[in-house]
């Protein structure tokens, strides 16, 4: 199972785990959740995420397909948000399932690393008095 979701609305990581496990349970499941932190330079009021939708979908689908094939995954699931996000809200979640754990770990990290450097999303942090585009750190 491969699934890519790009949405503005908030999501619940627990609901996603529940949904996936209701369909497929494999020997190993690894999940990653990235959330908005409360501080960077200053206290963050909110974050605005801009994205290039068609390109993001293409990149996510081809990345997930590559990962699924390479590590023989049972599940490779990705959800990424855009728009306005507040501290502690989830931004992205990647779930990988396979018979054995090493494949799920490797595939999960590969997908997250790849999206960090390639997926067309741009974060702008809004502080009390100003705002700032986040710099790429890999």
């Amino acid at each position, binding site marked *: 199972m491969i699934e890519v979701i790009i949405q503005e609305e908030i999501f619940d990581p627990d609901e996603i785990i529940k949904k996936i496990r209701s369909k497929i349970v494999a020997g190993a499941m690894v999940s990653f959740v*990235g959330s908005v932190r409360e501080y960077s330079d200053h206290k963050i009021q909110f974050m605005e*995420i*801009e*994205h*290039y939708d*068609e*390109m*993001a979908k*293409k990149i996510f689908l081809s990345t997930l397909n590559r990962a699924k094939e390479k590590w023989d995954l049972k599940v490779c699931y990705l959800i*990424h948000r855009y728009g306005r996000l507040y501290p502690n809200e989830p*931004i*992205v979640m990647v779930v990988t399932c396979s018979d054995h754990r090493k494949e799920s770990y490797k595939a999960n990290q590969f997908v*997250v690393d790849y*999206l*960090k*450097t*390639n*997926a*067309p*999303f*741009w*974060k*702008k942090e809004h502080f009390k008095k100003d705002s700032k*585009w*986040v*710099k*790429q750190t890999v």
Partner: protein
Amino acid sequence: MKIIYFAKIREVIGKKTEVVEIPDNISTIGQLLFYLTTLGEEYNNAVNDINKIHVACDQEYVDSGFNFKDCQEIAIFPPVTGG
């Protein structure tokens, strides 16, 4: 040619998207970026540091030697920061 700008580049140029008339002798991405810098100070400011610019043609990354003449849509943006 339809060009889309994102993030800081969009802000500096002041447009999300536009259709730019491109002279016939310009066919590679490198030439296009140079051409854009001649369109005004905001363009020059936005794309002057070519190392910090990424370009996608029809939603695929391309490098500066790529011939974009058959593309429908060119996107210009800074390094991505998703995830």
